[in-house]
C-alpha cells in the first residue's frame, strides 16, 4: 500500500464493517467485547480475549470517557494485526468513567498493533484524536443516522 503522507485520508481507517450504529450492549465491558467482535470479524484482531484484556488494563490506568457522551477505549496489543478503529453508537446510556461523570453513547475503540511505531496508521489515529477536540464534530457524532453520514463526518471534518 503506497499512500502520500501529505495527502492521506482518514477514510482509510474507517470502514463500514467496523461501525455499529445500534450497539446491543448495556455496559462498558460488553460494549468493548461487541466492538472487538467487529475487529475480529474484519481480521484486525487475532486473539479476542487478549485484546479485550489489554483494553481493560488500559481502562484501569485512567478514564477514557472524554465527556459529552464520547469514550475512546484503546489497546496497544500483540493481539492486533492491523491498527484501526471500531466505532459504536448506542441508544442506551453506557456507564463509563468520564471527565464529566456522565454516561456515553458513542464509543470509539482504538486497536493499535504492538509493534506499530512511526507508521501511517498511527498518524491516522492521531488525526481521529484531533477531531475529538472539535466541539462541533462531537455534537454531530451524536446525530448521525447512517454509516455513510458517519464516515463523511470524519472525512469532511478532518479536511477543515
Amino acid at each position: 500500500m503506497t499512500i502520500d503522507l501529505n495527502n492521506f485520508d482518514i477514510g482509510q481507517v474507517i470502514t463500514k464493517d467496523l461501525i455499529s450504529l445500534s450497539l446491543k450492549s448495556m455496559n462498558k465491558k460488553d460494549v468493548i467485547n461487541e466492538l472487538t467482535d467487529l475487529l475480529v470479524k474484519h481480521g484486525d484482531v487475532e486473539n479476542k480475549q487478549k485484546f479485550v484484556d489489554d483494553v481493560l488494563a488500559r481502562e484501569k490506568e485512567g478514564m477514557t470517557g472524554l465527556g459529552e457522551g464520547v469514550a475512546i477505549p484503546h489497546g496497544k496489543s500483540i493481539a492486533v494485526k492491523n491498527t484501526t478503529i471500531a466505532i459504536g453508537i448506542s441508544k442506551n446510556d453506557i456507564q463509563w468513567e468520564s471527565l464529566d461523570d456522565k454516561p456515553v453513547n458513542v464509543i470509539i475503540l482504538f486497536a493499535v498493533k504492538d509493534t506499530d511505531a512511526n507508521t501511517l496508521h498511527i498518524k491516522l489515529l492521531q488525526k481521529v484524536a484531533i477531531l475529538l477536540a472539535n466541539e462541533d464534530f462531537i455534537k454531530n457524532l451524536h446525530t448521525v443516522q447512517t454509516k455513510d453520514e458517519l464516515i463523511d463526518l470524519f472525512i469532511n471534518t478532518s479536511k477543515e
Partner: protein
Amino acid sequence: MKIVGIAACTSGIAHTYIAREKVMKAATELGYEIHMETQGTIGTENELTSDQIKEADFVLLVVDIKIGGRDRFKGKRVVEVSTNTAIKAPKKLLEAVVTKIQNA
C-alpha cells in the same frame, strides 16, 4: 503571553493529541502565542526550539507520564497538569495559570 508546553499520555495514542489540540485552541482564542510538543507512541513531534522556550512566559506540561527533555526548562516557571485536566477545561486551566502569574 507566550507559552510552550508538552503533551504526553500513558499510551501515547489519543489523549496526548486531544490535549494538545484543545490547549492550542484555547490559547489561540485567548490571544496567547503557544507551541506544544507531543511525546507519543510515534516519538516526539513539534519539538520545541530553544528560542521558543527562551521566550516563553511559562511552561505547561500536560502529562501523565515521565517526559523526556525536562532539563530544557531549567529556570523557567513550570506548571504541570494531567491530560484529563487539559481536555476537560483547557481555557479555564490557561486562565488560572495566567492569572496566577500576573498576580505573582
